[in-house]
């Protein structure tokens, strides 16, 4: 005979405001099988959990229904409490009175009635719950880190320092990411290269880290602790084992005028190239789209020159499978394309550049050797206008959100420019200056007071180019309440931070959620900021939201800690919500085998004592099954059932509603 206890939570006022919890409790105690019912302000708090534990013991409960928030929020909490009191945790169910009821309704009487219905449904289910035992699966103690920017490098180094193996996959020919492109970093004006490149070398030489550059994740199979990831090694056309990085090939390649992506198109590279001299690995790749040998079969100069015979024009993409137990996504960001702003020249004005282009101009290793020269004619600009919030905080043509890093790097740009061009004028248009970080406000103040940056509060309505090449910037000074026009030689737009192209596809491959802007979703915005909805997949850096370097590094170390925590045990417990086949009734039609998306349903021979095959049925691999229930739905003889969500339970839930 079932003895169910019902525990109704007010969730502070979240539920209590719209649902009459004592009335729900009074109704629940009259439901069949319920022997105990109580309501409380915060059921998830310690006294709340104690109430549940005490009732389980004292009332000899055989099942529990907690009517509170979403099971995604606290099912784990309450099941742990039940287990502590000696009840199998899978005999505890949650009725969602918050997300499914109080938050979406206003009428208290109707909401209370609905809450009673929801409780009745879960009581009907709980009466049919069966005790389940967790499944234990082995963990592959190797981590995959996707993205070789500072976040990915940091995560890889921390995991490697913890003694676990790491595979670091990077799409480009070199690791280093955007940080390698920066001149100096706020708020200390550290040289970006000087603090980054030693980390790049460390990552490449660490015995626990396998570097896979010029590679992309193709597909993923498996589950937490046991992923099999297929990585596409893109054809480099240069054998890294033979290449010594001498540079003869890219010094002689006749194609000299390919805009270098690393220099934001301001510098040029060859068809065979390393993106920058400090690249790791310092081995070139051939850009197949431009190489005349690969396109037309003519040239072949680099192969003739190479003293080691490392050039291979017949190189092809190859697929490599790696087995990993956890994944860190650190795919980073890029800048929004301001071509969408017709009023700022629609991307056609050469002297209207983005923040990365300015970083390259200011960088000692950049195309101008650190001299500020404008792209159109190479002249040193005497007036630069910096525009913050270009594409950010604009839900019409751009993005709704604040890109967070632009206030700081714009102040840095103004500062660097004034350090290099003493008679130059740096004008910054801003909406607000958001400098919330350690030493950040002081840094912006320094740009204003010590380095003479002129800050104008207001938006720029239009940038036009005069016949002589001067840019005319027209905007509003909203503090003075008047329009302003400034003639400038160069305009730097602080374009919005957006995710990398292809990040949505990668999220789908890993089963990670993303928001409407394409940023990856964390499991909980406050309490689980590095986990995702996909178990064993963690986030680091700007792929989750706009972030500066210290924040990216902090999150990378946090995700490394999560990975090391996961790897601390050789085995992993997972929820036993899996499909089960009734071998007596299975007709072996194999419909479930073709329907299973995880390859968990397999043929199974039923043997007699002599080892002779009596008949063949289907069996489910406990490690692979994800409990999606597709097999149960396609089974014609109702021979497949899902533990925790049996057909009988679902029907009982529906009946309770009717």
């Amino acid at each position, binding site marked *: 005979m079932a003895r169910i206890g019902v525990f109704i939570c007010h969730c502070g006022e979240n539920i209590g405001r719209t649902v009459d919890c004592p009335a729900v409790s009074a109704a629940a105690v009259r439901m069949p099988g319920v022997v105990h019912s109580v309501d409380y302000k915060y059921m998830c708090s310690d006294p709340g959990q104690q109430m549940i534990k005490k009732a389980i013991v004292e009332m000899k409960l055989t099942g529990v229904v907690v009517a509170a928030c979403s099971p995604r929020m606290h099912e784990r909490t309450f099941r742990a409490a039940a287990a502590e009191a000696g009840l199998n945790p899978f005999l505890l169910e949650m009725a969602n009175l918050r997300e499914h009821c109080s938050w979406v309704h206003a009428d208290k009487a109707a909401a209370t009635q609905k809450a009673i219905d929801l409780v009745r449904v879960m009581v009907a289910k709980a009466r049919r719950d069966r005790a389940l035992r967790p499944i234990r699966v082995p963990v592959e103690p190797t981590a995959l880190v996707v993205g070789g920017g500072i976040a990915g490098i940091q995560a890889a180094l921390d995991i490697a320092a913890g003694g676990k193996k790491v595979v670091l996959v990077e799409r480009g020919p070199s690791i280093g990411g955007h940080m390698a492109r920066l001149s100096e970093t706020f708020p200390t004006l550290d040289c970006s290269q000087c603090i980054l490149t030693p980390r790049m070398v460390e990552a490449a030489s660490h015995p626990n880290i396998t570097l896979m550059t010029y590679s992309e994740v193709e597909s993923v199979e498996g589950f937490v602790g046991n992923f099999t990831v297929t990585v596409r090694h893109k054809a480099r056309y240069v054998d890294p084992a033979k290449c010594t990085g001498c540079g003869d090939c890219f010094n002689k390649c006749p194609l000299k005028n390919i805009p270098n992506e690393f220099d934001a198109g301001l510098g040029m590279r060859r068809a065979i190239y390393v993106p920058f001299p400090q690249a790791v690995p310092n081995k070139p790749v051939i850009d197949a789209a431009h190489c005349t040998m690969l396109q037309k079969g003519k040239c072949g100069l680099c192969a003739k020159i190479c003293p080691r015979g490392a050039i291979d024009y017949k190189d092809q993409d190859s697929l490599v499978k790696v087995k990993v137990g956890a994944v860190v996504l650190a795919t980073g960001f890029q800048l929004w394309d301001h071509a969408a702003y017709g009023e700022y020249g*629609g991307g056609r004005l050469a002297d209207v550049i983005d923040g990365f282009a300015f970083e390259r101009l200011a960088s000692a290793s950049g195309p101008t050797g650190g001299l500020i020269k404008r792209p159109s004619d190479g002249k040193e600009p005497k007036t630069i206008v910096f525009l913050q919030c270009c594409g950010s905080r604009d839900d019409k043509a751009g993005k709704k959100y604040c890109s967070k890093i632009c206030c700081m790097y714009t102040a840095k740009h103004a500062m660097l420019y004034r350090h290099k061009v003493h008679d130059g004028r740096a004008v910054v248009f801003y909406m607000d200056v958001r400098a919330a970080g350690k030493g950040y406000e002081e840094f912006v103040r320094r740009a204003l007071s010590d380095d003479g940056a002129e800050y104008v509060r207001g938006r720029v309505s239009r940038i036009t180019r005069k*016949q002589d090449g001067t840019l005319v910037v027209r905007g509003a000074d909203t503090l003075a309440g008047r329009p302003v026009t400034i003639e400038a030689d160069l305009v730097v737009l602080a374009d919005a931070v957006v995710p990398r192209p292809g990040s949505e596809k990668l999220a789908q491959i890993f089963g990670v959620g993303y928001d409407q802007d394409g940023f990856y979703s964390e499991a909980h915005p406050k309490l689980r900021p590095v986990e995702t909805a996909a178990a064993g997949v963690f986030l680091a850096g700007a792929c989750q939201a706009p972030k500066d370097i210290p924040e990216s590094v902090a999150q990378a170390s946090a995700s490394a800690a999560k990975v090391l925590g996961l790897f601390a045990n050789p085995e992993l417990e997972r929820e036993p919500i899996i499909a089960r086949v009734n071998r007596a009734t299975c007709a072996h039609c194999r419909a479930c085998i073709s329907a299973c998306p995880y390859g968990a349903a397999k043929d199974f021979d039923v043997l007699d004592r002599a080892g002779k095959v009596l008949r063949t049925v289907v069996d489910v691999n406990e490690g692979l099954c994800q409990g999606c229930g597709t097999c149960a739905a396609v089974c014609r003889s109702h021979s497949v059932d899902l533990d925790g969500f049996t057909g009988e339970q679902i029907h009982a839930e529906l009946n309770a509603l009717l």
Partner: protein
Amino acid sequence: MKTLGYYPGCSLSGGGIELDLSVRAIAKVAGVELREIEDWNCCGASAAHSLDHSLAVALPFRVLALAESQGLSEVLAPCAACFSRLKGTQVRLTRSPELGQRMQELVERPYNGTVRILNINEFVASLLAEGLAGKFTRKLGLKVVAYYGCLLSRGEDIVTSDDAEDPQGMAAAIRVAGCEVLPWNSSNECCGGGFSMSKTGSVLDLSQAILDEARAVGADLVVTGCPMCHSNLDMRQLELLKRRRVPGALPILYLSELLGLAAGLEPGALGLGRHFIESRQLVRGGA
């Protein structure tokens, strides 16, 4: 033969009569019939909406209701201001069904919102789609700047066919007419609009800036679609010339006039002789 509803408004029988002449002329060349809405009334122009919000919607509402009852599914409003009023009313009606109910009671006519309203640029694009370019006979070879002003570029729900910050709606037609479209910065700058009478000084300043840039980039003429812009750039240019604020006369043509010239029509028949700034010399033997 394709039939379009036609809403001339006040301007096309007054100051903007050349627009009326040239629009009708190129429609004829393209084989499109323009059927004037019977019993049309004023769109409210810039006056109604500064006096009374109901009146500002009721006037265009009546025009649209008439068009619908006369079986016109598409209506051309060549005047940019008329277009803006008609289309703006249409947009307001889709946002608020309650407003439609109120207007219906006010003008005592039903309107179901079925009329599609075209501005001159959209009309020209549709003529090109009908094969107008095949009927062009005259090589123009002129350097043109396209001037849109505000009413043919702005209002994100109203001018849905173009980009407010970088309008391009006339460029294709001008190129098809055998002219070069010069890049410039003033294509959607303000000409001074309706302040021609009340703040003539400001209008002179604004129009001069536009004319100065057109000349600086080497344009032979300015092409526009709006009668208000035309009068500010054409009529007020006389004043600028008199005060020696501009070095010489720069012809201002309607887009429909330019296309009429390309189609081989006589400048006089298109209304070129009615401009304040002489423009007939743009075609050989025209002046």
